[in-house]
């Protein structure tokens, strides 16, 4: 498993260290969904700083992670999307709606502490 999942208070931090295969993405989704219920997490942060590519499958899986986590009672924030990755995603018309994004872990934790912020974020 190339994703370390850390626990910070009632927030889970999944730090993706290398490009993931499709099956690894699915494994991450299952594991996060399982952990959210087990530790009664309020938030999930997925750190994709190390990713050079986010393709349509990865984007869909991130959305799936967020929806699954929400059903289990936790908000999800994706952090660390690189500039080139952001440009590529926009050009290929991939979006992460309704996922929240943040610049780094600090931001993500601030959003999760005060969910109101996410609502006015970006629009």
């Amino acid at each position, binding site marked *: 498993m190339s994703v370390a999942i850390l626990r910070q208070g009632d927030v889970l931090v999944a730090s993706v260290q290398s490009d993931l295969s499709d099956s690894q993405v699915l494994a991450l989704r299952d594991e996060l969904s399982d952990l959210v219920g087990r530790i009664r997490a309020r938030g999930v942060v997925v750190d994709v700083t190390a990713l050079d590519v986010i393709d349509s499958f990865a984007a869909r899986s991130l959305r799936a992670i967020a929806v699954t986590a929400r059903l289990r009672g936790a908000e999800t924030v994706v952090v660390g999307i690189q*500039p080139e990755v952001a*440009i590529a995603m*926009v050009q290929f018309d991939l979006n992460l709606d309704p996922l929240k994004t943040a*610049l*780094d872990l600090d931001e993500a934790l601030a959003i999760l502490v005060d969910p109101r*912020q996410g609502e*006015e*974020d970006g629009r």
Partner: protein
Amino acid sequence: MTDQTVRVADAPLRSPHADPSLLHELVDYLRQNRTGLREEWVRRITDAELLGVMTPEEIFSEVTAVYDNYVDTLETGSVETLQAYARDLSERIIPRGVETHEVLGIVLLLRDVLARSLFEKYQHDADLLNRILDAYEPAANRIAVTVGVSFVEERERVIREQQDAIRELSTPVLQVRPRLLILPIIGVLDSQRARQLTEQLLGAIQSHRAKLVVIDITGVASIDVEVANHLVQTVEAARLMGASAIITGLSSTIAQTLVDLGVDLSMLRTVGDLQGGLEEAERLLVEGAETGGLA
């Protein structure tokens, strides 16, 4: 500059004292001794250490072309062909770093080489030599001026183009206060520049940890579907990185154009002018700080 060119081109090449038959003799002589004179010229160019950036083969082929043009110009009295050739040559050698003094030096060297060979040939007849030189000198001087002016004009054209490019490319991303950037866009936005601008902005968001970006397009004269979509994409990409964008300075013309084009800008947060945009940005930052983080 154009006026000068015309003047050079239109001026009579032959001096009033020159005898056409002498000029004809001169041209024949230069044609017959083409190989020797050309080699002598190359030797003197090499001795003077001019054109260091070119290989000997390149120098030799250019020299041959210039020599033939030179003789043709002496014969016909029209500098137009030579002028075109000089422009073309300049276009090729300027990017390689050939300097004005080298070009002028080379043309003057040819003048010296030819003059000296004339001295040698006619040294026993001072009167004939004088008349030959009367025919030769004005033409040679005018050729030197033509080549020099063509080179300088070409170089100025290159400089102007580069200045235009620089002016269009400069898009500073400025930090006004922590976590707040402004991006004033001035001039024409084409797709290449828009792409570069997006990259710069996203890089700056990352390095400054920006939370808000105010994109001011007061200086953009017109906007089309492509540019509008680029703006939307830039804002969307910034949002993926966790930063919000405010667009300011849409003129009424641009606003109407966008409505007419049917571009969907509901994604964008827009404010009338830069001042309003900054006030809005500050409000959002303060609000964010009060609620425990930054919005």
